[in-house]
């Protein structure tokens, strides 16, 4: 992830303070990232109550694991978003198991559109920089061939495994893997361009 996404040093300082037991830093982390994390979680779970629950679990996990965060690795937003996505998907899966529903019966989430432009009130991440990231990601996603976009959508936002995706789309497993790989490679290239432009 290009560190254009976030002022990396300030965020790492927050995580260092959390690891040292400073609960105010957890509040600040929440202020900085709740809109981004809420957006992705709401997209996955589809219900504000469920989203709140997942957000609480996610930020709590961040508090408990702050000491194990490795600075040399990904950025703070990646760390948080990946924890949130995984918890949201678990949430949907357990709910699905509970209701014995098939994934086809879940409410259809809104089409992946890059959002942002007409989103609600500004958050700390509504900086020009974040807007730029959002624009680039939206463009890159929009340029993906429909079958690649669908694969990413089903895996990332619907929490489906590659086997489930293969069944749902009637494609071989290898094809699902290839589509996922091509989609992420294109997105990575787009983000790399953003980083070069930003310097």
């Amino acid at each position, binding site marked *: *992830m290009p560190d254009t*996404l976030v002022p990396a040093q300030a965020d790492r300082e927050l995580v260092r303070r*959390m690891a040292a*037991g400073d*609960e105010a830093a*957890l*509040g600040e982390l*929440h202020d900085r990232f*709740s*809109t*981004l994390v*809420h*957006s*992705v979680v709401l*997209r996955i779970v589809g219900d*504000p*109550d469920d*989203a*709140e629950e997942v*957000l*609480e679990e996610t*930020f*709590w996990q961040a*508090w*408990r694991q702050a000491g194990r965060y490795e600075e040399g690795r*990904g*950025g703070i*937003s*990646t760390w948080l*978003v*990946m924890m949130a996505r*995984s918890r949201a*998907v678990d949430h949907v899966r357990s709910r699905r198991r509970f209701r014995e529903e098939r994934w086809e019966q879940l409410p259809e989430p809104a089409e*992946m559109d*890059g*959002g942002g432009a007409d*989103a*609600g*009130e500004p958050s700390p991440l*509504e900086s020009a920089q974040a807007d730029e*990231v959002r624009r680039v*990601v939206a463009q890159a*996603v929009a340029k993906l061939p429909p079958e690649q976009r669908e694969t*990413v959508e089903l*895996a*990332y*936002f619907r929490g*489906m*495994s*590659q*086997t489930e995706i293969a069944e749902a789309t009637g494609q071989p497993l*290898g094809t*699902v*893997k290839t589509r*996922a*790989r091509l*989609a*992420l*490679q294109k997105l*990575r290239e787009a983000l790399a361009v953003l980083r070069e432009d930003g310097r």
Partner: protein
Amino acid sequence: MSLEMTHDDVRAALAAEALGALDGEEAEAVRAHLAGCDECRRELESLRETAAALAYAAPQVPMDADRSARLRARLVARAAADRGGASADAPPPANRIGALASGDEESGVIPISRARGRRGMMGGGWLAAAAAVLLLIAVGAYAARMKGRYEALSDRYASLDQERTQLVQAIAKRDSTVAALSGPGVQVIELASTQRRAPGGRMFWDPATARWTFFAHDLPALRPDRDYQLWLITPAGPVSAGTFKPTPDGLATVQATYALPRDQLRAVAVTEEPEGGLPRPSGQPLILGTYGE
């Protein structure tokens, strides 16, 4: 049976892993390979960073402001309680008092301990207790939200809420006890006995606030219809500071408020009396502590 995957197989599966889409057996095989392959590990990290950026592809929906403020408050309270619990290695004040009250086993009438400052009792244990209340409040708020969705939780919530109320009351009581023991001018009078099981006690007297706090240990069990009675012995005669019954393990605490000039206390004593107590002691003291400036 574990799945065998070559480096190239793993490379081909890394995007699916970054999207969290690998099924169990394959995910295990990929993770096993990653442990020994830097190249694949770096590639996965890069793909994970990319996948995380997909969060920006979701429509940006800020959380409802009230909901967000409540969540933030809950998180900070939970974190404060978490930190307080982890760092509180000092025993809570009551434990220290218990240790104080049960230390002396010598026989005979114990001379007076002169006034000792009792500062420094508000340690980390106290902070932890306060943090625990915050945690319970946070849990209470959380339970309140769940209640509407899961009716079955309402009973649990009621008991939590009651527990919280009891804890708040217990801590308020402890707070006032600590205050009564920790004033700069608090006097300490020790009471002891010649009996075999050596009952004993300690009286904390703060002349400034007229607060008396008494702890006793190893008190023999009472016969039915009997009470222990605590006396302040003054030149004008004994003044009752109340009656009490010990716990099954012989412990007792009495608190009283009674204004007495500093030079008017001669001794503190406990006698056994008919239930409800008497205006004057009827027998010999079980434990006694004399006092003089």
